[in-house]
């Protein structure tokens, strides 16, 4: 079962991986976007880490609702309201349970992804974060590792697509041949989840040897 501490570690791992990969995300966002995706997400997740330290939410749902609100208010680009809505709706769908199962999370994340689809008016195949998140949610019903693989594959699968949402859609055919930065960052978020689950099952306590710092 996954408790609030697990979700805090997931968000901390997400912040770490976004920082490590910020340059790559911004590079992906240069040819087809406005070249700020890495910096924006880094700023948002830094605020998330600060908020988690200050507020200490007690349930998985409360952790995600807090983090989602922070992303909406600090990111500054479209990924803020989109990721913010993803985390908030997922958190609300988890309710106030002190612990949730992977299956519970898969179900709640499905609700969150649906909310993102509604907010952005996008669907599968539009070359957006949904192309990583939709297959990840489905695979999360099987395992964390399956979700990671599905999200990474989903992100790579955006390369031949033509963008139909966001600034990249103005480019039409010229958006083809580039990996969508939102799908790439979504794959990172799911990879951070799988890494967190790995750490949780390796030992009874979270790693303290600094190996993943």
């Amino acid at each position: 079962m996954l408790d609030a501490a697990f979700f805090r570690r997931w968000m901390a791992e997400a912040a770490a991986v976004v920082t490590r990969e910020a340059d790559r995300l911004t590079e992906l966002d240069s040819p087809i976007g406005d070249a700020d995706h890495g910096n924006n997400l880094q700023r948002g997740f830094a605020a998330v880490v600060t908020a988690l330290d200050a507020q200490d939410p007690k349930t998985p749902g409360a952790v995600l609702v807090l983090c989602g609100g922070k992303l909406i208010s600090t990111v500054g680009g479209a990924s803020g309201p989109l990721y913010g809505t993803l985390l908030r709706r997922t958190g609300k769908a988890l309710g106030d349970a002190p612990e949730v199962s992977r299956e519970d999370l898969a179900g709640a994340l499905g609700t969150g992804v649906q909310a993102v689809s509604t907010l952005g008016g996008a669907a599968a195949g539009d070359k957006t974060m949904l192309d990583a998140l939709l297959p990840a949610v489905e695979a999360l019903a099987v395992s964390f590792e399956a979700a990671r693989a599905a999200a990474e594959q989903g992100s790579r699968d955006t390369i031949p697509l033509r963008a139909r949402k966001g600034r990249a859609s103005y480019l039409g055919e010229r958006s083809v041949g580039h990996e969508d930065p939102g799908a790439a960052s979504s794959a990172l978020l799911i990879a951070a989840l799988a890494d967190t689950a790995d750490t949780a099952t390796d030992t009874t306590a979270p790693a303290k040897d600094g190996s993943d710092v």
Partner: protein
Amino acid sequence: MSEPTGKPADGPVGLVLVSHSAALAEAVAELARGLSPGSEVPLAAAGGGPDGSLGTSAERITAAAAAADRGAGVAVLADLGSAVLTVKALLAEGDELPDGTRLVDAPFVEGAVAALATAATGAGMDEVLAAAADAYAYRKV
């Protein structure tokens, strides 16, 4: 949330202009005010990102909406992608924006001018929204 038709509003409908650019939001506000001289409609600009560069700031939007609220609702015009999405996300939160806040479906400049001119006549929210949306119907060619 919205005022029932016919009920006298507490004050004029407020307007908020959300742009990726602080300069653009201010300039459109100045243009709209200039075309409705003497208007007492509260009009607040919320341009730029959290660090002042190009982008969208949820905090600037909530502050502008609070400043423009006179109890008759706040009409929010937004320019592009994240500006629109952030307003929608804040509306979905339920408690971030004043009661009666609405996102206007209109082109940014023309919609702002139409919304301010209409609000200045004392019109209610529905009329302000309709006037701004009407700007889509004006073809330039």
